[in-house]
């Protein structure tokens, strides 16, 4: 039990809220209470303030820590290159406890107490959905890095964006052709019995059908479950592929029990790496995954054909070739998702520059400037790959990776095209009033 997993990691990088506030007070040369700084006085010289709604406690804590690290690295790079519109950028962190009720309060706190320019960084879907009304009411641009389909469903409001990570509906759709062609035609799905699982339940069968394959069974596991063997008999014997998405701490148990149940005589396995984010692929019990395939947003392990931008990004965030923290091979990152923080911040930068953003009175302009964005080229600002952005549904679409577990590493064997994941928009945010 060392401090490597400690909670206070970020205090060492001078990235706590207090440090941020101190910097703010010093930077603006104001002696007033930092929470009540008036913008009219602080314009142009004062830093741009980004409120970071972080999962520091609660079920999302493992993700929250890496989201904070990636964000710190991106902000450092942006500030070193001159900031946004010539102003430095500062991040103020508030913990939402991975709870939607507290999430909404935190957005309110950013809007009315810290008076941040935007709110950013939320991952868990229920927190995004719980916080979205508060963002809309406070007319606060809210940039999430959640991969949920909630933003693109156009059920939220005009102030909510997801420009840095592809949504799960698109991810699933782009996986189907590969699964049908390479893994097998008869698929059994195992997924958690909550919303994240439902996206997989609802979008995979039609996507596979279009490729001539079939989902022959769907097994929904209750979120409170900690043991899975009793559900395995429901997997039909003719299953060729088990498509699994498990989220939460019980995933190791799930894989281990699957291993004990099947032994070496198993169907093909295809999973979403969400299950194993922040988990060492070489943990005892995971040998069973050898030879199986995973979706990855951004690859955890360094690949031979990595671009310079990808290498620079990995170095900036501080992860080694195995996707673990530099200097601590056991501290595995959430590489498949956290790149979204980096890319989202660069989208915010671009949109703020396009809008000539000066302060909170320009928030509506910022929303419109973000909606006007069309595509993001691969490069240092978008190391995961190129993306297109649909301003009507506030969602970006990028390439996806399929990786094979081989010799204790994840090796990318297939990259999808952006077109594989496009679908008909379900609505249009731009018709809503600002």
């Amino acid at each position, binding site marked *: 039990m060392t401090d490597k997993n400690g909670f206070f990691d970020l205090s060492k990088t001078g990235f706590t809220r*207090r440090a941020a506030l101190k910097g703010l007070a010093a930077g603006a040369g104001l002696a007033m209470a930092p929470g009540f700084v008036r913008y009219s006085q602080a314009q142009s010289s004062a830093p741009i303030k980004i409120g970071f709604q972080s999962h520091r406690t609660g079920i999302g804590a493992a993700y929250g820590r890496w989201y904070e690290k990636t964000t710190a690295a991106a902000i450092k790079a942006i500030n070193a290159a001159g900031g946004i519109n010539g102003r430095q950028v500062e991040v103020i962190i508030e913990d939402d406890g991975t709870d939607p009720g507290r999430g909404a309060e935190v957005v309110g706190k950013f809007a009315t107490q810290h008076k941040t320019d935007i709110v950013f960084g939320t991952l868990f879907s*229920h927190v995004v*959905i*719980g916080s*979205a009304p508060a963002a809309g009411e406070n007319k606060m641009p809210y940039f999430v890095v959640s991969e949920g389909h*909630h933003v693109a469903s156009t*059920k939220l*409001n005009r102030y909510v964006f997801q420009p840095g990570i592809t949504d799960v509906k698109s991810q699933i759709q782009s996986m189907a052709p590969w699964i049908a062609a390479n893994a097998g035609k008869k698929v059994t799905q195992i997924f958690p019995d909550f*919303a994240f699982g439902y996206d997989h339940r609802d979008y995979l069968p039609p996507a596979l059908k279009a490729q001539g394959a079939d989902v022959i069974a769907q097994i929904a596991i*209750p979120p409170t479950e900690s043991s899975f063997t009793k559900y395995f008999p429901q997997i039909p014997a003719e299953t060729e592929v088990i498509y699994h998405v498990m989220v939460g701490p019980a995933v190791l148990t799930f894989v281990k029990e699957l291993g004990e149940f099947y032994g070496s005589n198993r169907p093909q396995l295809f999973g979403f790496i969400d299950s194993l984010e922040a988990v060492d692929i070489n943990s005892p019990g995971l040998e069973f995954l050898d030879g199986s395939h995973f979706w990855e947003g951004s690859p955890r392990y360094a690949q031979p054909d990595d671009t310079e931008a990808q290498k620079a990004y990995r170095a900036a965030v501080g992860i080694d070739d195995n996707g673990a923290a530099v200097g601590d091979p056991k501290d595995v990152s959430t590489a498949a998702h956290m790149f979204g923080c980096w890319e989202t911040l660069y989208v915010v930068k671009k949109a703020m520059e396009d809008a000539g953003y000066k302060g909170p009175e320009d928030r509506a302009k910022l929303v419109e400037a973000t909606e006007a964005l069309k595509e993001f080229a691969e490069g240092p600002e978008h190391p995961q790959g190129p993306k297109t952005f649909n301003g009507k549904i506030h969602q970006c679409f990028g390439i996806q990776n399929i990786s094979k577990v081989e010799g204790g590493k994840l090796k990318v064997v297939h990259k999808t095209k952006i077109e594989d994941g496009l679908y008909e928009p379900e609505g249009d945010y731009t018709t809503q009033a600002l």
Partner: protein
Amino acid sequence: MSEASPAKAYGLHLGVIALLFVLSFLLPEYYHGLLARIMVLAVFAMGYNMLFGYVGLLSLGHAMFFGAGLYGAGLAIIQLGWSVPAAFAAGLCCGAVLSLVIGLLALRTTGVAFMIVTMMFAQVFYLAILYFAAWTGGDQGMVVPQPARVLAFGATSLDLTDPTVRYMAALGLFSLVLLMTLAIVRSRYGRVLVAVRENEERTKMLGYDTFSNKLAAVVVSGTICAASGAAYALLFGYVGSSFASVQYSILPLLWVLLGGAATTLGPLIGTLFMYYVIDVTSGYTSAYLLIVGIALILLVLFFPKGILGTIRQRWLGWLP
């Protein structure tokens, strides 16, 4: 406990309500919004206090009553397109019906068994929300759209998403429930409830039907909690399953115990206290739960009857 004159008791409570009204114009924006939320949740705590404080029944399942109001109102607006008042009424009805059914079943037990049974029913309620995800949105929950959260009276309309309107709506509900609990507590019925708490057998022997008195208390308590849940859905626009989880059954217990069980103003003070401790400490450290934990233990060591309960015991014996 000496008895306060009606003027003194009602005077104090009206004073508190007046203070909250004045605060609306004085508080900085952030605390203004926070206090609106606290008042809505204090109603939840007052509902809990009805049963726990005055009847002595410790339930660990009140999140389901809050949830019944939350989902009753939320689903009525989102799925059925009802108006705000109709949705609020739907939330209340759901709470009343659910608490009647739960009361009929759970009141067959007492003590710790009552606590466990209510907890299990609440767990069933929570799982049912997940199971019927097609309508409830499952664990992600649902957003009540902003345009639907408007109270229309003919030509004029009140936008519940406006901070001042929201604050006043929360204050209105809070005041109503506060004065109602005060009236109940001071009534003949309130005294019967306390008698049940102190000695149920004796009360029974005096000729009171303790079961129906307790059942009525469960329904009143559950309906008040549902009112809080319905108000939460309408004022803050989010309906989610985490509000029906066991954590939200423990919270009102905590708020009531902190503020002082069986005091009319205790629930407000307990809710206020917990919120501010979390809000202030979370600004300094991410380990704020540690501080909350320590604060709880210190409070219970040095203020065993809760804040207001201790004040009543030591100084102001007349507090209702």
